[in-house]
């Protein structure tokens, strides 16, 4: 496809400029910190950290855990959980390969909920459930649905009120726990990448150089000032409500995962 055709094919999936109501063209670096580049600072990082980040950017792990069909499905799902249509092709952040790699290596976060199967099995069950729902609701494979239908199906899982079709699976695996597993893995892979750090204005590795401007959100000399722009979520998506969307968690809020204090 020529760049223009690709642009037009995906315009339903592109964020909108509210001033013109036209799609925003994909760019190398979305976000409010134009010109900010953590990778440009890597000479100031210690060698061990530099190597870990280099590998993450340049050595994409091979697919080993998921079967071909599962891979196709999960890759599309990852594009809904962490959509990147606003990024040009050279600046997308691989997510699926790192989930595959984690499960292949058998790495866990150090616990499993008593009503959950092991992570790999949970993924397989969840993918089956999504396939079954898609067949029941639309008579089609998930990957053949239009983008908005896919987004809506996933939203029903987010809401812990999944569309009918996979009741048996959800009786073996709580739907909100599956959602938590999937979203946590996706955000971990996305926000571990230096392109994502540049997008959100996070300073990245900081040893041995240090920070010296701690107060009032001031940037370091090598960081940049924020330059905001308005954008509306793409027409084909339902994942950007104006208000917090936690109805599904009111009864049993999931506990926080990372360490804080």
């Amino acid at each position: 496809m020529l760049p223009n055709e690709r642009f037009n094919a995906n315009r339903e999936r592109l964020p909108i400029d509210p001033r013109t109501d036209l799609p925003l063209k994909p760019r190398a670096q979305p976000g409010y910190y134009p010109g900010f580049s953590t990778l440009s600072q890597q000479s100031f990082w210690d060698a061990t950290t530099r190597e870990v980040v280099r590998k993450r950017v340049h050595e994409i792990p091979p697919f080993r855990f998921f079967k071909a069909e599962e891979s196709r499905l999960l890759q599309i799902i990852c594009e809904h959980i962490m959509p990147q249509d606003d990024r040009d092709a050279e600046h997308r952040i691989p997510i699926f390969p790192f989930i595959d790699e984690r499960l292949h290596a058998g790495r866990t976060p150090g616990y499993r909920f008593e009503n959950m199967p092991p992570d790999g099995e949970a993924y397989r069950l969840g993918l089956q459930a999504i396939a079954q729902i898609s067949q029941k609701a639309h008579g089609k494979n998930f990957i053949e649905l239009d983008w908005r239908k896919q987004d809506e199906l996933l939203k029903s899982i987010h809401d812990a009120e999944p569309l009918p079709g996979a009741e048996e699976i959800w009786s073996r695996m709580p739907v909100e726990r599956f959602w938590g597993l999937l979203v946590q893995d996706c955000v971990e892979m996305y926000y571990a990448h230096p392109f994502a750090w540049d997008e959100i204005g996070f300073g990245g590795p900081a040893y041995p150089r240090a920070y010296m401007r701690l107060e009032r959100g001031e940037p370091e000399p090598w960081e940049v000032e924020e330059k905001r722009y308005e954008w509306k979520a793409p027409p084909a998506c339902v994942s950007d409500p104006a208000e917090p969307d936690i109805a599904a968690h009111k009864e049993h809020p999931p506990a926080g995962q990372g360490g804080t204090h």
Partner: protein
Amino acid sequence: MKTPIGGEFEEAHDHEHHLGAMQRLDAPMRRFADDDEVDYLVVGVGAAGGVLLQRLARAGFRVVGLEAGPFWDTEKDWVSDEKGSHQLYWEDMRITGGENPLTFGANNSGKGVGGGSVHWAAFTPRFHPSDFEVYTRDGVGVDWPISYWDLKPYYELLELEMPVAGPAWYPWGDPHGYAYGPHPMGGVGDALIRGCTKLGIGVSAGGPVAILSGSRNDRPHCIYRGFCIQGCKVGAKASTLITHVPDAVRNGAEVRPRSMASRIQLGKENRVTGVSYFDREGREHFQKAKAVIVCGYAIETPRLLMNSACDEYPDGLANSSGTLGRYLMAQAGTVVLGRFDELVRMYKAPPAHALTEEFYETDPKRDFARGFAIQTVGPLPIAFAKQMMVARGSWGWGMRRVMMDYNHWCAFGVLGEILPWPDNRVTLSDERDQFGIRIPHIHFSLHENDKKLIKFAQGKTEEVMHAAGAKETLNEARFAHLVGAARMGKDPATSVVDLFGRTHDIANLFICDGSILPTQGSANPGLTIQALAARTADYLISQGATVFNSDKRDLTPPPVRPHLSPPGTHGKGVPRFG
């Protein structure tokens, strides 16, 4: 691409063992043979195990520390990166359940020399005098078999050994001051001070945290890079890896890394004889010892004792009371997130740098017993994204949008006292780990008082966040720290160890870590765990060989031995009030 003057920073090519940017492990380590009967075998070289090894080695005992994880070289093994730091956390499988299942790994469990003290945020408030007598005062929980005043001398020692930076006047609990100056404020601390001040709530700025505000000996001061819970490569944040273990090794202790204890052996005459463990290749060994001290923290300690069940102790070693594994506690750690119009950039400065204990004590005007603290936290992007998933239901473009505002958000953590309940407990699952050892199952549910406390604390914290200027607040329910599950007490029928950490059942088996805490207050437990370890060490030194050859149980408090502190720490530059 810019480079530093002199070129980009290079890999450490030397063969030295780095403990922070400047310190090196500068002595060859002693190696005992498995059949060499050592005096004390310490299982778990973390917050407590590190202090015990150091004290006992200095006093001349032959000691070995078994550690399941690696003996870190901070320069070669650690990174300034969130995702790259998983190796610091205990990520072996645990099954978690109950109405409010706890999460483990990065949340509260360390692996490798230094244990959890490697990835703690390093808040080091003392417990208050009231914490030791909550049953007497409020009719809840249980009293400790010791008082604050028994522990106070050890708080003072450890605050210098770590050392702790903080204000010269700290007003809560037993008022005291800190030798090392408070840290400068980051964006989160600014907001906490602003919010508290507006509401007339007292607040402590710049500590108490076990992070150097000025260089000391071969440890540099903090560089404010914000990666405390990913391991401090700088060597400014205290962990026993850099504060106590080097001195232990220098004095003849052996630290045996990648050694996973599987079973404590009970011999004749109701005495333990040593510990079976798996080495890095998975080979099983047995280390003989005259006495064993288990320092595995609140999950691994009961797990090891339960996995050591035998004919004499069918429900787990030292568990004749049936309390082993019970009264497990985590602290309420609800994170309140606030969005500000102006930038905060909360990734700068240590996550831990300001707090208030104004709500710590029981207040008869509230409808629950005990209280809470409000502390700064500083989630990095991955942790923050996971919080937004929970707190805002974010995913897809909503996640992208809220994350683009990362620098506008600020986070406070509630630290609330959850009371000890018998049904919150560790048991063994039927599943096994990579060594074939049964893995733990943890059951955790909140009770009425806990729920009321959390609701109130969350509301108060939101109020402070709004007063600081936040336009929107969200909250993430979560828990912090793990203590209990092998509690100390006077009565052998309702506790596992006595006031010095000796198991009631077996005279040469001790427990020394967070699991022996009967209650937990609203203070981060790290300082108290290390202070208890120093006290147990003084006790063992006073008992001398009695521990090795008799079942005599002497409960006389030992003298405080400040000369056993690592060199150059005791008595330096601390202001004293009262």
